[in-house]
């Protein structure tokens, strides 16, 4: 029963949602709307589970002083600080003004944004290093890739942009697009096949092993 009931629910709602997609009647759309509400409600439980999991993993790390445990303190501090400062109660003078509160805003603007931006900026350095090491004209195909990459990179450089940009645009819009389109068509067919396998009950790995 532990497997049959979830499987039956997935098959039932899978077919139902598929049918509702193609039925433009008002009643059918109302059912669709209700089902979407249900999905959001169920999702909230997943959120609670996620928070619980984050807390328990990090508390465990701190308790047993596992590797890099001090970072867990920072994680938990960040989690609770943002929850507390994001709360909304009291009057206009209260420091708890939800997402508009001074502390919430400043934690976001002055801590989160610089951290995220720094992490992303570091990518430029790793890309430069990786390009230096990996972009070698070892074969004809590698040479084509190398030349293509260089043309695309220099397409905006003043003085030569006039000549490089049309070539770069062609590379992006023709060979690149053709390859991407083929990949996406393959991905699309794969998604349809997987979806069908799920709602036909063939694909069951999401049920777990127990």
């Amino acid at each position, binding site marked *: 029963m532990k497997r049959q009931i979830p499987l039956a629910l997935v098959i039932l709602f899978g077919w139902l949602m598929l049918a509702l*997609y193609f039925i433009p009647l008002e009643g059918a*759309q109302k059912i*669709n*709307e209700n089902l*979407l*509400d249900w*999905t*959001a409600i169920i*999702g*909230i439980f997943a*959120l609670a589970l996620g928070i619980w999991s984050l807390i328990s993993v990090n508390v465990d790390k701190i308790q047993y002083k596992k590797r890099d445990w001090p970072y867990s303190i920072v994680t938990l501090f960040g989690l609770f600080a943002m929850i507390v400062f994001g709360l*909304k109660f009291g009057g206009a003078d209260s420091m708890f003004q*939800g*997402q*508009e509160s001074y502390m919430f*805003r400043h934690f*976001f*603007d002055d801590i*989160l*944004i610089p*951290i*995220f*931006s720094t*992490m*992303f*900026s570091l990518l*430029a*350095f790793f*890309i*430069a*290093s990786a*390009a*230096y*090491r990996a*972009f*070698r*004209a*070892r074969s004809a195909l590698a040479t084509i890739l*190398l030349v293509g990459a*260089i043309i695309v*990179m*220099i397409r*905006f*450089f*003043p003085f030569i*942009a006039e000549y490089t*940009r049309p070539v770069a*645009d062609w590379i*992006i*819009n023709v060979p*690149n*697009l053709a390859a*991407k*389109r083929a990949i*996406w068509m393959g991905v699309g067919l794969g998604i349809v096949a997987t979806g069908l396998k799920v709602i036909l009950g063939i694909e069951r790995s999401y049920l777990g092993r127990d």
Partner: protein
Amino acid sequence: MSNNQTNNNSNLSFLERLMLLDRRWVFLVLALVVVSTYYIPMKVPVPASTEVRSIYDAVEGLKEGDKILLAIDYDPNALAELHPMTYAILEQCFRKKVGVIITSLSQNGPGMAEQAILDIVDSTALPRTYNGVSYPGREIINGVDYCFLGYRAYFELVITGMGQNFRTFYSRDYYDVLLDSIPIMKDVQNYDDIEMVIDISGSNVVDAWIKYAAARYDVKLALGLTGVMMTDYYPYLGSGRIFGLMGGLLGAAEYESLADNPGLAMDGMKVQVWAHITIILFILIANIGYFGTRKKRGL
């Protein structure tokens, strides 16, 4: 570096050394280039591409009182590339008195959206500077000129839900005001009541906009994406599923240039150009070393 490594390196020829530069040199040179070029007064010409111009033209063609939905679906890591797009589009809409309904379906998106809103919006009509540009005072009022709906989890459901009614998932806006009491939202039920959706995104939220809003509800959709995402979405432009595409700092700079709103993206282009040149030089150096030592390596 250990003594063995130092001895081995001292036996290398010049060409071999070119191939085996320590990556810290690459980091250092790139850092110097990025920092120094920021202060060089140089203008990079950014002629607008067709895909960026089509977004600009579509917004420019709107009438006063029309409404668009601007989806700010990116986190702070994409700030440098995508924030200027948000600023440029918001600015263009406010100049034209086009209403903007803003949503944020990525987790840190509301913070980004609110930062842009706080920078631009002004109910006191004072002159201000944002995105590197100074503007004279003008009144932009919450609920009248724009409305910020905020974040809801499960973006695929929210995008589908908004196709039926915005109130399915947003009964109140980000500031806890009932949607029905917001002037700009009074006549807006679903996508049929807005002219277009522009999704500025650094994540897979963009796929849901294409699949559910554009494909299912036939919404007129344009995208602003990070540079690395760009090539993935060109096929949708070719198929007509989206009508415009802005990619990375360049896309933002092109839009700024079109909108006569030269901000941080146009300024950042010079740094990007020189950084690319530096990377190309490193690639060339490595290849000179590679070809110069082929014989020695018996290739």
